[in-house]
């Protein structure tokens, strides 16, 4: 049952990304290009997504998930080095390519060889992340 919910979630997520235009890298780069021909679409996508999500978070206050024992642990509020440096690296890659992980997967069926290449490089990057984290923590200790 949880897998069926996850499949439906993925289907809606992918449909939303395609309809909103977020699988088109020119839109994402247009949003990041603040001194150029700025494209505000991404702000509408973010805003549109945050509204139902904010309601869902309010609904989590007085109940349990239908198919799980508890909601995610949100007690971690540390603004760690990994959070900041990771976000900067991610932003650089996002600006270079115009793709983040969701749209990279949603566009796999029509993104051609370059889309596949990006996805493969992203997976390699994910595998390298534990090493990068270890290096960061070493730097912090010394």
């Amino acid at each position, binding site marked *: 049952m949880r897998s069926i919910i*996850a499949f439906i979630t993925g289907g*809606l997520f992918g449909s*939303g990304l395609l309809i909103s235009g977020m699988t088109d890298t020119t839109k994402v780069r247009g949003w*990041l290009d603040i001194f150029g021909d700025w494209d505000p679409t991404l702000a509408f996508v973010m805003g549109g997504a945050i509204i139902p999500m904010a309601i869902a*978070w309010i609904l989590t206050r007085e109940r349990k998930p239908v198919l799980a024992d508890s909601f995610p642990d949100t007690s971690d509020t540390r603004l760690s080095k990994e959070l900041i440096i*990771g976000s900067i690296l991610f932003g650089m890659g996002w600006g270079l390519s115009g793709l983040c992980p969701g749209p990279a997967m949603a566009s796999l069926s029509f993104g051609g060889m*370059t889309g596949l290449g990006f996805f493969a490089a992203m*997976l390699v990057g994910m595998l390298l*992340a534990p090493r990068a984290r270890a290096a960061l923590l070493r730097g912090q200790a010394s």
Partner: protein
Amino acid sequence: MQIEWVYGLFGGLIIGIAGSILLLFNGRIMGASGIIGGLVDGSGRTRARENIALILGLILAPAVFVWGAGMTGETHLINNWAVIIGGGLLVGVGTRLANGCTSGHGVCGISRLSIRGIVATVFYIAAGAATVVALRYVGGMI
């Protein structure tokens, strides 16, 4: 232009509904980088089945729209392999270090006013904008 933000808002709402379903039913955060990253490095082993189901939906739904319903699916990804591979590696390492991307920190984090989500989003958007501006005006690449 005007119609594009309507699509953006509508697509965004669908993304938010998707995230709400996953949260309220499965008690999980719809973060694209965590879902694929957990499969890649094995950290999400206990959730592997539902992670695969979500990713299948995420790839299949846009495929049906594009290949079945004739919707335009264009990524306009830059045809420069150095940028594609470099961008993919940075997105992969960065999102795993920061423990989230546009969907996890952006949509799911900001909607509950998570300080980590807000700070991460500020940093990846700033880094993305700086990268696009540098590429366009200094490098003349895109």
